[in-house]
């Protein structure tokens, strides 16, 4: 199957400043890609170029087989801007009916779409009275119009409460299962962990790392952390026998090791038998991996 989005050697300069440098990326149908980066790393710029809102300085981009921003591309791409905004004088339903007509779809679907994002009851109220999270959900509702092949979502869950976030990712899973490709950016690293097929780490306009979470973990070679809960009176003897172990204020003991030493350490720890009452093994989190890769560029 051909890819939904192909970017090769994309560079974008604003005057002398390079916002993006030599970025290449391929997104296959049904794939969910997360774009991570600091503010100013180039995430929003990259999305605007994919949408055809601003032109690229160099490089080739193909969106659903067409040029970005062309009529064919726009018909198949949905966008959720960071801080989605709408005219405050319109109701949610009126705004969605308008968007449906602009996409050549039946405006009668507006209430269904609002119901899918939990706004059925607020449909007849003016958007000016909505909270930030509700506006964000209007934004999500309009991305669901007419089975887009590519969804470009800039910080889609900002302003959403944890329950709405879970519902939102469930919606995305459904769309991806139907073959839609999803490119989203996020600051909340933990939530993209389980929900994406590919992670891109963008720093100073360059792709610093790309791959699956497991692949990135291996590449970053970050330590695995063990947390032991010692049985009454054994804490000191355990710390002495484990080099590099630390006593935490909670009375637990923490020790780190390299990925390839993990099993050996686990064997030793389980050998302590009744001297420990509990054990937690924590792999490096996406936050750790992210700071590892973005620190490499001196941020």
């Amino acid at each position: 199957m051909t890819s939904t989005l192909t970017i090769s050697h994309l560079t974008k300069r604003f005057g002398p400043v390079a916002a993006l440098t030599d970025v290449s990326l391929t997104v296959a149908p049904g794939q969910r890609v997360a774009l991570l980066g600091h503010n100013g790393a180039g995430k929003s710029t990259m999305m605007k170029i994919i949408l055809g809102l601003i032109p690229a300085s160099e490089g080739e981009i193909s969106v659903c087989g067409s040029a970005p921003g062309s009529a064919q591309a726009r018909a198949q791409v949905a966008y959720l801007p960071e801080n989605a905004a709408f005219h405050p004088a319109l109701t949610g339903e009126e705004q969605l009916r308008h968007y449906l007509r602009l996409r050549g779809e039946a405006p009668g679907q507006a209430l269904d779409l609002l119901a899918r994002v939990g706004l059925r009851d607020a449909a007849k109220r003016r958007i000016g009275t909505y909270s930030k999270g509700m506006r964000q959900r209007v934004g999500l509702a309009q991305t669901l119009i007419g089975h887009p092949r590519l969804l470009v979502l800039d910080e889609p869950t900002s302003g959403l409460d944890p329950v709405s976030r879970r519902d939102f990712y469930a919606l995305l899973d459904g769309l991806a299962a139907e073959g839609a490709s999803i490119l989203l950016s996020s600051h909340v690293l933990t939530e993209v962990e389980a929900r994406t097929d590919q992670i891109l780490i963008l720093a100073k306009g360059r792709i610093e790392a790309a791959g699956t979470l497991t692949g990135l973990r291996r590449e970053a070679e970050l330590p695995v952390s063990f947390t032991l809960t010692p049985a009454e009176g054994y804490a000191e003897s355990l710390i002495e026998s484990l080099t590099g172990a630390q006593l935490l204020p909670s009375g637990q003991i923490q020790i780190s090791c390299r990925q390839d030493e993990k099993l050996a350490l686990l064997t030793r720890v389980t050998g302590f038998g009744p001297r420990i009452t509990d054990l937690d093994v924590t792999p490096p989190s996406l936050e750790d991996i992210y700071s590892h890769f973005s620190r490499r560029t001196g941020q």
Partner: protein
Amino acid sequence: MRRILSTAGIEFRIALRNRWVAIATGLMVLFALVLAAAGAAPTGDVGVDRLSVTVVSLTSLAVYLVPLLALLMSFDAVAGEVERGTLPLLLTYPVSRARVLAGKLLAHVVILGIAVTLGYGAAALAAFATDPEATRGLPALIRLIWTSVLLGATFLGLGYLLSSLSRRPSGAAGLAIGLWLALVVLYDLGLLALVVSGTAFATEALPALLLANPADAFRLFNLAAANSVGAAGGMGGAAASIPLLQSVLSLALWPFAALLLAVAAFRKVTP
């Protein structure tokens, strides 16, 4: 076409809720009634019906008020979307920028049409109430309505142009007031100075300069047409020297020129 109509529908709703429809209509009705009342006193017997006289007064009013209303409604069209942050999303939809502006123009033209029809209509009713012969002025009234809409459409387009160029509502508002002053007030003063200079160039260039300004073309057309029934005084002389066809062509072409300029400027706006 569906996309233009949908945009127009949304814009009309927004204008309705922002009270623009009420403000525009209220202003037109109020000014038209004041003029009708002021014009009611000194007519005496000049052999012309009351409505034709009212139309001449309304023409002088419309030259100032219609462009002002049009600019007030349009200066925010693009700059406001930029400021609210609604433009990037709109531009990712499969709708061309020309259609977006055409939709806004359609809605605003309808609102102006309602405002001038009701405003002039109120003045006409006042004329009918005092003069049974006033029906003779109806063709002039209808002419005033459709030319006012054309004049308004021109300034709506120019408002979108300024809105696209400035990209900030405050800047666009300033530019709009400047344009209104320049085209509606200062332009005529400049022409007056030219006429007073009495050079041969002045006599030759004056008709073209009058036609080049949509507000002057509007005044020329309506007064020249009114002149034929003897209702217009002073300016009638200047108006008579320029054929009706030329002034009506200027009036009809300006809205398209303004919209084309606005679309060209809007295409350059990067969200």
